[in-house]
């Protein structure tokens, strides 16, 4: 029993190797760029039944967290999985049309001057 407990300790490391959750894949499906602050949101489509092979509990957790628009970095922090793994799982959800990527309004050099001014005002009033 004592030996058993030792292996179930958090210190023992991951119970499931992170990339086992992706079926061993180390690159996202498709060509959508998912950077740290890419915003994703559930499309409202229901997952097909039966679910595609490889659609696991982590996909469902992420899908639930995407009900509101959310960034990739926040999702990775929420589910406590490595960013690379989260990107792959999200790319699966994109392929299944369960989530969509919101167009980025605030990337350089198209950054809107007004939004930046809002950032500045917001920082000043912190």
């Amino acid at each position: 029993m004592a030996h058993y407990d030792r292996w179930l300790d958090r210190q023992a490391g991951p119970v499931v190797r992170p990339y086992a959750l992706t079926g061993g894949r180390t690159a996202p499906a498709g060509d959508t760029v998912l950077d740290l602050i890419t915003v994703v949101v559930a499309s409202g489509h229901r997952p097909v039944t039966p679910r595609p092979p490889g659609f696991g509990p982590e996909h469902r957790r992420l899908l639930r967290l995407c009900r509101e628009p959310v960034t990739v970095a926040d999702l990775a922090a929420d589910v406590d999985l490595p960013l690379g793994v989260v990107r792959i799982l999200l790319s699966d959800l994109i392929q299944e049309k369960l989530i969509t990527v919101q167009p980025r309004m605030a990337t350089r050099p198209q950054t809107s001057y007004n939004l930046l001014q809002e950032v500045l005002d917001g920082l000043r009033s912190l």
Partner: protein
Amino acid sequence: MGSARSDSAPDGHVPAAGTPDDGPAATGDAPLNPFKILVAGGFGVGKTTMVSAISEIRPLRTEEAITEVSIGVDDITDVGGKTTTTVAMDFGRITIGSRITLYLFGTPGQDRFWFMWDDLSYGALGAVVMADTRRLIDCFPAVDYFERRSLPFIIAINVFDGSPRYEPDDIRVALDLEHDVPILLCDARKRSSVKEVLITLVEYVLANPSGVATPVASTAAEVSVAAPRP
């Protein structure tokens, strides 16, 4: 740092969360405008301190393929023939009003994590390069990187007790910086000081026509010194 594990039970059971199935209620329309600011600088310069002084730190880690240089240095895991390492990142979030969120990402301090910088800097608003006057050389790589990428950056000298004091102009010469790059003294432990650093960066980006779509009358940004209060 937490270990990687699935919170779902191995049998695939998912704890009930409101709805019985996956049915996502897509709200979808609320605009979310994330901005990204990088906090760079050498190892131990105070990046984590700065990020945590002004924002709520969230756990974020990544597993990245690494070069052979790192093998034997990092705790490595072999994944399907690819070698990866876990890198923890400083990740902080500041909510501004109802539609803007500012994200702060600390860059990994060690040279062997350079491969992550392109990803981190993609779409960033700008960067704060933290420097320590006792080890000024440590921030050279970050300055080089942001200059090459034309990403607006400012220099924040984290003033440590007992570290030599230099005038910002001396630092400008030592770092061979353009005349308009703002240089501040700061205390990374103090929220007010970090706030000043971020304000300076955003002002600099706004004053720098290449950084925004709408050109603004640009006056040469003056060297501003937010002197830390002892």
